């Protein structure tokens, strides 16, 4: 490890990490909103939309994230859909992970007892109130660990954005290395930076799960 060298490039590495984090957060927001929509469409079996979404989800879950990223980056512009690389990156992450988030959320919805939906219906609560005030508050807590694990996966997988020229943490590191050849120092520091963020999140999930289990065992 060359600490002097590391110190000199540290701001650049931090800049890369910042891009990684921002892309992940944006992707997560997209994945959550889209995942909720997909889960609702599937739970309520919205005609036609439901079938279309199911096919799309299957396609996304069974092709590599990198392939989807290239598709959006190279193919969409040919049909007049143009975004900058970063937006495409965040969209691709969000779209990819929305399919997994939807699965988790759908599980959460279906785990809410049927009687809860029926009580809402008899009281005349509309679909939106039923979801927001009754179903989501019960469906979300059990799936928060799964969603957080997805967030951690997305954080790590955001490294693929390097492939479409986005200078996130991996790309920045690689670029620095290609001129300085300080591979050991750079890639060790990069690994530690990923860890510093992902590890506490993983530990947090573990703790939360244990607390949730305790509570359900006691209840």
């Amino acid at each position, binding site marked *: 490890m060359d600490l002097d060298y590391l110190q000199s490039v540290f701001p650049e590495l931090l800049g890369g990490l910042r891009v990684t984090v921002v892309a992940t957060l944006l992707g997560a927001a997209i994945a959550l909103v889209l995942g909720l929509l997909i889960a609702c469409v599937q739970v309520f079996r919205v005609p036609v939309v439901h079938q279309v979404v199911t096919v799309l989800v299957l396609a996304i879950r069974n092709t590599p994230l990198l392939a989807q990223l290239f598709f959006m980056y190279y193919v969409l512009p040919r049909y007049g859909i143009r975004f900058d690389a970063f937006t495409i990156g965040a969209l691709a992450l969000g779209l990819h992970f929305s399919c997994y988030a939807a699965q988790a959320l759908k599980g959460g919805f279906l785990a809410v007892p049927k009687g809860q939906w029926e009580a809402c219906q008899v009281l005349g609560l509309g679909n939106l109130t039923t979801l927001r005030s009754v179903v989501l508050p019960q469906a979300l807590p059990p799936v928060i660990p799964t969603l957080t694990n997805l967030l951690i996966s997305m954080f790590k997988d955001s490294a693929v954005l390097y492939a479409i020229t986005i200078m996130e943490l991996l790309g920045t590191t690689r670029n620095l290395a290609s001129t300085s050849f300080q591979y050991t120092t750079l890639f060790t520091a990069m690994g530690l930076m990923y860890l510093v963020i992902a590890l506490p999140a993983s530990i947090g999930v573990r703790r939360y799960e244990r607390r949730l289990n305790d509570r359900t065992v006691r*209840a």
Partner: protein
Amino acid sequence: MTELSGKAGSGIAMAGVTKQYGDHRVLDAIDLDVRGGERVALIGPSGSGKTTVLRCIARLEAIESGSIRIEGHEIARMADARSGKASAEVAAAMRGVGMVFQQYNLFPNMTVLDNLTIAPVKVLGVDKAEARERAAGLLDLVGLGAKADAYPARLSGGQQQRVAIARSLAMQPSVLLFDEVTSALDPELVGEVLEVIRGVAAQSDVTMLIVTHEMQFARDIGDRVVFMEGGSVVEQGPPEKVLADPENERTQRFLRRLLNH
């Protein structure tokens, strides 16, 4: 009683209602009328279709054929309808229908008070403060004024069911459906719930259709007792007649079996 302003309309009218689960005919062209303000106890062996009757009236189930009217409005959900969604007119009629479930179905993520106010606020557009005030009054009525801020999980089954009754009353229904509301309870908690229902019956003129296995209760509360078996009404009449001196042989057999328990 200001909390219970439920007004009696023309009640419930089911005519020729047939309900199937797959090939299994659960309601077989059943006719059942409950006049406005009347209290009808619905009894019958397990699997005879009592719950299904209530669920069809509450629009939780679609029916194959027949008609269900609430206060004169046709509300039946037909199995062959293109959408299960209620029209505005049906939704308005259904606002007057409350149901109390065997498993209470309180919202565990809300306090007792919020369980009572959510529907009046969101559906009827009642002002929040007013809804809370009315809810507090209803909780007093069911003897749980002190539990307004508790979460349902902290309450006993009997208390939860009393909250569920108060929740249905908060919508000022004209029709209330009760589905074996004491059968999930420990025996020592049954009395307090039945007492609350008796109180509601005495202080309002809400139309009530009550499925119950408690024959003494059916006798006290019912203006009429309806015995059903195999998806249709076998016998009905005044409680003292149907329960003490039934004419139909199947009613006799059912009551004899209950007695021998």
